[in-house]
């Protein structure tokens, strides 16, 4: 097997746990879409062309509440703004790739693929083929999401209360699993505590913009804590 296909398959394999988490979430998206009154074609098109689970979930809720289309698009923008932070993180690793690579990798950039791939890039080992790893993770997530959204659509049609099974628990469970490997230092712990507390204090902000505000608060707290740690270490050395 060539290095490229090895990378591709290990990207897909390392994403496997997150496929497990995305399956109930895709199913409840499909089920809710039907209940909300979205046509089947539209529900599948959203999975195929938007491909952003939590914003699809929020959008379906807004469709059910008969919110104006402009408001749904604005909310999508704010809920997905975090992906720009992800692309900023991957920037140094992708800048040598041609646009034919950058466009699909951007289209497929999800929380899950990002969380798996960033660990791969941070290994700083054979970076020349690392984008194949990201591609493998992306395609695994994409196919899995299409499949389970479709199953959810079919289920939601037949079993109207499928949306009350609590399948939405999959998102927090998956995210907790993804957060833990990042929390290895004191500044990182402070960052997580701050962002978590801020997320509860910003609940009243419109269009779920509290996510971005809380994330920025957490990042700032992490940076301040990091500088504090460095200064203290400096003093010990003196």
């Amino acid at each position: 097997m060539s290095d490229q296909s090895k990378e591709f398959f290990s990207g897909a394999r390392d994403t496997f746990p997150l496929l497990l988490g995305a399956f109930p979430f895709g199913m409840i998206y499909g089920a809710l879409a039907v209940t909300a009154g979205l046509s089947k074609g539209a529900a599948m098109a959203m999975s195929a062309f938007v491909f952003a689970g939590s914003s699809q979930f929020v959008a379906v809720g807004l469709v059910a509440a008969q919110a104006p289309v402009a408001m749904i698009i604005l909310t999508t923008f704010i809920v997905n703004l975090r992906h720009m932070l992800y692309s900023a993180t991957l920037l140094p690793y992708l800048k040598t790739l041609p646009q034919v690579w950058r466009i699909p990798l951007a289209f497929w950039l999800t929380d899950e693929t990002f969380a798996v791939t960033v660990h791969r890039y941070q290994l700083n080992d054979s970076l020349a083929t690392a984008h194949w790893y990201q591609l493998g993770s992306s395609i695994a997530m994409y196919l899995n999401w299409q499949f389970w959204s479709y199953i959810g659509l079919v289920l939601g049609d037949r079993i109207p209360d499928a949306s009350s099974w609590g399948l939405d628990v999959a998102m927090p469970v998956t995210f907790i699993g993804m957060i833990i490997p990042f929390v290895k230092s004191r500044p990182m712990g402070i960052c997580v505590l701050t962002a978590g507390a801020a997320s509860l204090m910003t609940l009243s902000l419109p269009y779920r913009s509290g996510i971005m505000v809380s994330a920025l608060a957490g990042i700032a707290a992490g940076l301040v804590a990091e500088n504090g740690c460095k200064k203290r270490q400096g003093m010990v050395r003196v």
Partner: protein
Amino acid sequence: MRTRELVMIAGMMGVTFGIRYFLFAFADRIRLAPWIEASLKYIPPAVLIAITVPAVLLPKGDWHISMSNPYLVAGVITTAAGIFTKNLLATIAIGLGAFFIYRMVI
């Protein structure tokens, strides 16, 4: 598909892809300030926790801090499983399993 749905999906696709691609498009021409580079590593956990905490404490949009909230119980069990197993697949499987078992029991 109705026109309203078409406009909605086209708009959602436009903003989502725009967000994901904007920096990649100019990747070779962008130089990040050192303090931004230093902040990048905090981004993933900060964003993920900001989505997770409300989803666990206010699962249906209202505060629900009690043992009768299966989202909260599953969140605590998932965290413990993550810390002790250090294995993502086991963590997610235990978390999902705990949620559905607990929901059946209560």
